[in-house]
């Protein structure tokens, strides 16, 4: 437990975070495009929007239990990187949808009309003008959601994280170690907690650095795109 470093935990957290992005980004961006560009503004879409806002506020442990029921048991993924990644993906989905929708809404009507006036169809306008204009906002939202996923413990607790593994996950159906859970174990579950405090603190620092790095990437991506084709 205290030997051999925390590389497996760093690896596990990175892997599960990437998987959650693969789930949340396409689904969330697609959903936001539909809601903002295609769906009629009626009672149903308003209801859906309100539900998405509410989902963003659901405690993460609820997502964890939902993940156990749906991914681990019903879909038969077992406790695995895949199940945990899907659960984290669901957790971040609402915020990806909301930030993407916000970014799409901020694309001026006049810019869209410019494309329509040149003979672009609805989808061509969305694909070639609206989405590229909204990229900085969308990417920032996705990366911030990702950094939140990296720090979550509750959703992976029952869906895939392991107390201790001797090997790195060889496939997405293996269990894995993750930084937040490793920290929890080191701080509460060890027989000599006082002695391994430094290890726990180091794990905490590593997790914070990882999240900080992700946020920094978000910041960098945003400024890079802003400089390129947006008003200074």
């Amino acid at each position, binding site marked *: 437990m205290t030997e051999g470093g925390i590389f497996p935990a760093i690896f596990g957290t990175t892997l599960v975070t990437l998987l959650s992005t693969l789930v949340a980004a396409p689904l969330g961006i697609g959903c936001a495009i539909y809601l903002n560009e295609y769906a009629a503004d009626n009672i149903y879409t308003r209801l859906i929007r309100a539900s998405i806002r509410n989902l963003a506020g659901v405690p993460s442990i609820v997502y964890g239990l939902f993940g156990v029921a749906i991914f681990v048991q019903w879909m038969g993924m077992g406790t695995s990187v895949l199940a945990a990644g899907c659960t984290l993906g669901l957790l971040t989905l609402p915020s990806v949808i909301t930030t993407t929708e916000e970014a799409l809404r901020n694309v001026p009507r*006049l810019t869209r*009309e410019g*494309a*329509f006036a*040149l*003979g672009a*169809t609805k989808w061509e306008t969305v694909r070639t003008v609206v989405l590229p*204009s909204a990229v900085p906002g969308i990417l920032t939202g996705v990366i911030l959601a990702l950094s939140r996923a990296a720090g979550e413990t509750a959703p992976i607790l029952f869906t895939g994280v392991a107390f201790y593994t001797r090997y790195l996950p060889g496939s997405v159906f293996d269990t894995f170690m993750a930084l937040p859970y490793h920290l929890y174990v080191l701080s509460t579950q060890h027989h000599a907690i006082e002695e391994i405090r430094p290890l726990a603190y180091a794990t905490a620092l590593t997790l914070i650095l990882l999240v900080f790095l992700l946020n920094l990437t978000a910041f960098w991506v945003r400024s890079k795109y802003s400089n390129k084709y947006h008003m200074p």
Partner: protein
Amino acid sequence: MDHSKIDIQHLNLFFADKQVLKNISLRIPAGKITALIGPSGCGKSTLLRSLNRMHDLSPQARLTGKVMLDNVNILHGNTNVVNLRRKVGMVFQKPNPFPKSIFDNIAYGLKINDLCSKQELPERVESSLRDSFLWEEVKDDLDKSALELSGGQQQRLCIARAIAVAPEVILMDEPCSALDPISTAKVEELMLRLREKYTLLIVTHNMQQAQRVADYTAFMYLGELIEFGETEQVFGAPGQELTRNYVEGHFG
């Protein structure tokens, strides 16, 4: 009377229950500049946007009557709107370049409509920029973002973007309202040049502008077409009391 390019017949337009255009009939002469003047809210922009079916974007808008472009009714349900908008280009009130490079802005309409091969693109982009007097100013910066241009340059870029797809008609919705006098003068010079190739229809608030560039002028008031004729006649010897009061500046 010159040969007409667009023939508007008994056009009515409603937004929900509100009637915005009332029984408009107007023939827009080919190869000329026609100005639409009138006080704010009289429906001139609305009329302009009917001619390339921009109202399709507002579900509440409903049109009746006919708009004949070269003797084809473009309001008919099975009109190919994409083709129509390629034939009837539009320049907006505020410059609205895409957040792309100058080159990509001009190439946009060509690419989306598959109008030319990739090899031909640079040539077409250059000729559109030359036609809009922008080439000399931007030829070394084609990869720069269009948003870095000045307001006047952006508006000429939007005109270049519109003419790149070789339209037959160009609609301009108060194209100079956001520009300074020098940029305005350049755009007006450009309009006069474009008249050689295209039919232009221009909405303007500026009566001096209408007199400087337009061959024909239509005066609208509260959704109705009050008077239409040669610019000198509309401003010099208007046939209607209302027109006289407006062009003499008694209201508006």
